[in-house]
């Protein structure tokens, strides 16, 4: 299990290769990359600043990954989240899950993203033509996280 918070960009290809590390038990590698879009709530976004809570962030992400490891049979998990100044098309987050079978890999990858979105202490501030503004939390993200608490979630 690997969790990293960093200002630097990451290379998805080499991260996935390192995660697989030629382990012949791995049959499925699901991954997700979140990227900065150039629009948000109808406004153009020229740049974004990602603030976080140093100290808590690692713990929160490790707890989320730990819960995924308890729920599903996984072989490895990687989470990288960037902080600081980001521009449209920049990568924000990478979540990658290795498992024997795809159902576990897909579910755990989506679960980690949903929990990260609602439980990890990051905050986005966008620069738009109307000025800088804090991104509002989305109701849809809360609902996405809640579905994992339903039976069969």
């Amino acid at each position, binding site marked *: 299990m690997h969790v990293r918070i960093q200002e630097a960009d990451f290379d998805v290809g080499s991260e996935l290769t390192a995660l697989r590390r030629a382990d012949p038990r791995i049959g499925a590698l699901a991954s997700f990359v*979140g990227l900065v879009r150039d629009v948000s709530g109808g406004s153009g976004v020229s740049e974004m600043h*990602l*603030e*976080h*809570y140093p*100290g*808590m962030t690692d*713990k*929160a992400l490790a707890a989320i990954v730990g819960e995924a490891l308890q729920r599903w049979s996984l072989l490895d998990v990687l989470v990288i*989240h960037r902080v600081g100044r980001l521009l449209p098309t920049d990568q*924000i*987050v990478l979540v990658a899950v290795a498992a024997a079978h795809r159902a576990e890999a897909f579910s755990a990858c989506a679960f980690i*993203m949903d929990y*990260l*979105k*609602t*439980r*990890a*202490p*990051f*905050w*986005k*501030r966008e620069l738009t033509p109307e000025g800088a503004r*804090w*991104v*509002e*939390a*989305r109701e849809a993200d809360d609902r996405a996280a809640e579905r994992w608490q339903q039976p069969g979630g």
Partner: protein
Amino acid sequence: MLTILYFASVRERVGRAAEELALPVGVADVAGLLRHLGQRGGAWEGLARIANLRCAVNQQMVALDSPIGDGDEVAFFPPVTGG
């Protein structure tokens, strides 16, 4: 002593990122601390009324009725928006 941290829009609102504060007499939970901070007036008065104010004690998200004690790190922030 308490360490109190403020993040994102909450930090901007109170104009402060962090402070050290002796545990005020009679304060035993997060809600009590918010009432105590509100006595400073100005932006501090509105702190407890922020819709969806979130709190962490010792880097764990907790409800506002959670207990706090000497030596704790308490953080206030809006709902998270990473990912």
